[in-house]
């Protein structure tokens, strides 16, 4: 019922329309730009010093799809996810609705899960839609990508999205200023994504490595068997953020009086 309320609110905010649209747009950008880049360069460059190497290998479909994830979703995408979610708990705190809701026999857990489930459904749907659009364009403009690889990669990626959602919810619960929430979440998520690959130990606990697994899945078609542990670890991290959120609200640390 809290989930239902969130969806009605998202519909009234028109969030259910613009979020998928933005991700579809992001999904289309990469294949189209990659496809037309040589042509654009040729036209703009006009042969003055820039030579287009005719032997340059044509980009593979999988590469383009992977770069949709890495250079579109992991950059602009993170910002959009955080911005669309930064107020998730913060507004309820600011206008007293959270305290009000909790005067009713509602558990903190159902409040938080209502927020996370509803936002995750919307974001996962938007990301998947954008990704699938990208996939269609890639298949049309470049070489085909195996369906299985495409789906497994998406699942890895969606796990990373779930972490983004639960992490932003946690930050939104702890901090009161929307700017601080956005800045902190974006900085942390970017940082996590950047340090992927630096150290095996960090990758193991870093949920952003899910994005890298998605990349490998598309490029190579297989991933390291250790991935199971890393996936489990990501779930642990997600659970951890939820526990902190729960603790914070249950112990009434949000009360600012």
């Amino acid at each position, binding site marked *: *019922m*809290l989930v239902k*309320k969130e969806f*009605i*609110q998202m519909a*009234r*905010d028109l969030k259910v329309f613009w979020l998928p649209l933005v991700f579809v747009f992001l999904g289309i950008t990469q294949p189209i730009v990659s496809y037309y880049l040589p042509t654009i360069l040729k036209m703009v460059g006009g042969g003055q010093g820039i030579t287009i190497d005719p032997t340059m290998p044509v980009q593979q479909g999988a590469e383009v799809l992977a770069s949709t994830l890495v250079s579109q979703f992991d950059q602009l995408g993170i910002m959009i996810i955080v911005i669309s979610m930064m107020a998730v708990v913060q507004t309820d705190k600011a*206008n*007293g*609705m959270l*305290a*009000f*809701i*909790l*005067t*009713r*026999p*509602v558990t903190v857990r159902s409040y938080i899960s209502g927020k996370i489930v509803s936002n995750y459904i919307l974001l996962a749907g938007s990301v998947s839609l954008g990704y699938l659009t990208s996939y269609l364009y890639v298949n049309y403009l470049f070489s085909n990508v195996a369906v299985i690889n495409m789906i497994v990669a998406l699942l890895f990626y969606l796990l990373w999205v779930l972490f983004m959602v639960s992490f932003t919810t946690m930050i939104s619960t702890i901090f009161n200023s929307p700017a601080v929430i956005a800045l902190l979440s974006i900085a942390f998520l970017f940082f996590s994504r950047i340090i992927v690959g630096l150290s095996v130990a960090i990758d193991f606990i870093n949920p952003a490595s899910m994005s890298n697994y998605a990349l490998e899945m598309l490029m190579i078609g297989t991933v390291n068997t250790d991935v199971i542990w890393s996936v489990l670890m990501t779930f642990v991290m997600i659970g951890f953020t939820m526990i902190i959120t729960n603790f914070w609200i249950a*112990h*009434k640390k949000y*009360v600012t*009086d």
Partner: protein
Amino acid sequence: MKLEVKTVTKEFKGKIAVKNFSMAMQSGECVGLIGPNGAGKSTLLKMIADIIDPSDGEIVIDGKKIMKMKKEIGYLPQYPNFYQWMSAQETLRFMGELSGLSKDHLTKAIPKILSRVGLSKDADSKVGSFSGGMKQRLGIAQALLHKPSLLLMDEPVSALDPIGRREVLNLINDIKKETTILFSTHLLGDAEEICDRFIIIKNGEKIEDATIMDLLSRNDVKKISVEVASKNEQWIKAVKEFNFVKNVEVLGNKVEIEVENVQLNKKKLLESVLEHHVDLVKFEIKSGSLEDIFLKLVVEK
């Protein structure tokens, strides 16, 4: 239903908001929590509503922790804030479902409660467009929806204009018959109108807990006020010399005389007025108002 607040203390970063506060309430009572601004009224109500935890002490209903008794409590915050994008009906449905009421039940109960608080016509209007009085009435509807045995109201009328105030006071007077009410206010008149028992709180401490009759008889003011056209120092001096006069206060053209027994002493006093040829305007026996008692309690103690 029995509400017990047991030696509750609340501290905010070293500042004590409520100090060692105890009280008990029985079913059917209506209690006004009165105190100046910043006395700790809201903090106390928030603790009873389980929005904040006391630093020390406990609050129980029928011997059980309030955390498990939320269904029994209806709470109206000082500034009820609902989702602006919801209509009145949606708000009630949402809050009702949070309270665990079934959909069928709500479909029947919501129109009833809306007509009760006089919002039937605005059932489908957005809460964002409501006036203060309407929001307050919606807040009351929300607090009553699940038929709580205890209704907590934090300053239900303080922020309203006279019309809105009247509406809400009438509504509370009406509800009073069905449920137990604890409400806070800094306006004594409101409490006097609705409740028969008061708890006066100051600086987080309880300084008085009594019924209106108790309060009036205990703090019976034994004063005679004499208004004169021009001051007569001789007469005032003479009055001070009476052995039954306890205190004389001169306020402009008014002389307030505190005596031991109004009934026995008034005649003597009047005689002295005539004797000294005082230019008399008014000779009045003062009956204490609640306002005086309140001021006396809050300022003196």
